């Protein structure tokens, strides 16, 4: 069986296309590369969607935390504390069992008990809380002069937010937000270890890596493969965020443009 056959059989195994049964013996390097890479599709799915939706929610949460209205302010602060102050692992567990209980009362909640939606919701809230805090910090450090200038030009309300506050906030938050995005991709490996079932063994990259480590009693092959995939993924994220960073700072003189400074990898 050549490597191409294995890729054809298992390349999309994690989303249910191709061979039904996972390989049971004679694991080759090709098997491990293919299946772990196939699982990475889930990590990308969770990461990208959570980033997009979480970004919008994070903006709202940050504005809420900065709001004058005490109710909105308390709610946003509480939301951030709830998701930043507890382990993501426990959040996944709690959310899963919460959805499970809700499902028994209202069947409409049944999609939430599967990973593709339930875990995504948790990840969205989690990243919204972390990025919300980052955005809030950036909002606090918008130069006073920028806003005064906007007022002097008669730019107010929504226009002021859209044209002045929001772009400046993003510009200041971007390096920290890049780190958050990388963390988020790392955090996605927890999904299938925390209650959410891997339906028909359709799991993510770590799920397959630990499958191989269990079957072969040899952690020295699958985990380095996983690490390799992750390094590539991280580099791609850095590249994309770097392009955005360039665009956000394009009005500044060349040597004033902040470079992305990366602080990688802490567990949440």
């Amino acid at each position, binding site marked *: 069986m050549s490597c191409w056959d294995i890729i054809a059989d298992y390349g999309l195994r994690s989303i249910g296309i191709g061979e039904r049964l996972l390989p049971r*013996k004679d*694991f080759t390097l090709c098997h491990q590369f293919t299946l772990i890479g196939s699982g990475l599709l889930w990590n990308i799915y969770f990461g990208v969607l959570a980033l997009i939706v979480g970004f919008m929610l994070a903006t709202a949460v940050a504005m809420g935390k900065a709001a004058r209205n005490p109710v909105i302010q308390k709610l946003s602060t509480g939301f951030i*504390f*709830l998701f930043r*102050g*507890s*382990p*993501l*692992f*426990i*959040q996944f*567990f*709690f959310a899963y*069992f*919460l959805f*499970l*209980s809700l499902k028994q009362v209202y069947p409409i909640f049944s999609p939430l008990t599967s990973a593709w939606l339930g875990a995504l919701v948790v990840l969205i809230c989690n990243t919204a809380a972390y990025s919300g805090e980052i955005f809030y910090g950036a909002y606090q450090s918008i130069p006073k002069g920028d806003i005064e200038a906007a007022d002097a030009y008669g730019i107010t309300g929504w226009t002021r937010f859209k044209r002045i506050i929001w772009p400046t906030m993003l510009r200041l938050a971007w390096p920290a937000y890049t780190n958050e995005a990388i963390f988020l991709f*790392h955090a996605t*490996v*927890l999904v299938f*270890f925390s209650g959410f079932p891997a339906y028909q063994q359709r799991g993510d990259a*770590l799920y397959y*890596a*630990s499958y191989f*480590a269990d*079957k*072969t*009693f*040899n*952690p*020295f092959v699958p*985990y380095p493969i*996983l*690490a390799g995939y*992750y*390094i590539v993924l991280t580099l791609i994220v850095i590249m994309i965020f770097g392009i955005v960073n360039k665009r956000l700072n394009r009005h500044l003189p060349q040597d004033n443009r902040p470079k992305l400074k990366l602080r*990688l*990898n*802490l*567990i*949440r």
Partner: protein
Amino acid sequence: MFEFCTDPSTLDTLPWMACYLTTGKQFGFYSAFGTVLLLLAITAPVSLAFGFMGAMAARARNVIISVIGKGYIAIVRGVPDIAFFLFFVIAFDQLFEYIRHKIKCPDWSEPIRQGNDFVVCAEAKLPLGSAPQWVHETYGFSLAVLTFAIVFGAFAANVLFGAMRAVPKAQLETAAAYGMNERQTFWRILVPQMWVYALPGLGNLWMVLIKATPLLFLLGVEDIVYWARELGGTKTAKFTDYPHGDWRMWYFFALLVFYLAFTWVSEKALDRIMAHLTKGQATTAGEAQRRAAA
């Protein structure tokens, strides 16, 4: 526990709860919180020591030692965290067994990796197959502590390395001017002053460490997550005196509250330590403190 608990099925909700929450299994769950605190109590100083050595190595004059120190910081920080946890536990286990195998069974002829199996002689097994249950549990726990210490040691090394460089140069130059040698400068001037620069980073790390403790579950230790899943599951009257539905949600809710409270307390405590350390330091906060007092 209580006298009225002899026949739980006849009890009202409140006494039933009192009895249920004091059964032996529940105490297993409570003691698992102790496991978490024990892990934190051991891991935090050990990884701080690892970090201190890592930082000292990274700033050594000797190129080889410096590369080792910097490599330690870079490698552990660059690889996905959870994968690291899963990897280290098996890797250490096999490493220890391999070393013992080499020492205890020198005339063993078969290869250790036989296809998909890792085979060492019976005397080299860790812990020995005949060992009592608590030895197995302690061994698993120590592996977990070691893994945590290595990973968090690298994070701490990074923070301390930065903190050591943040101490104002003038302080060290003054020490040299007073005739202190390098060792004296390091221990008497640099180390006492670096903590105030290190504390925000270390505090952050402490928060992260707290939030990493549920990962003990992935390492096979019977921690709070294990017990919450175990006890929360549906129990029928056939197997227990206290039948109940699926309560895992409530158990995990309790864990969530536990962690939130822990984080909150830690935040307050760290603020206090920071205020204490800032006293008399040549930083903005130290200056502000001095002005407020004057």
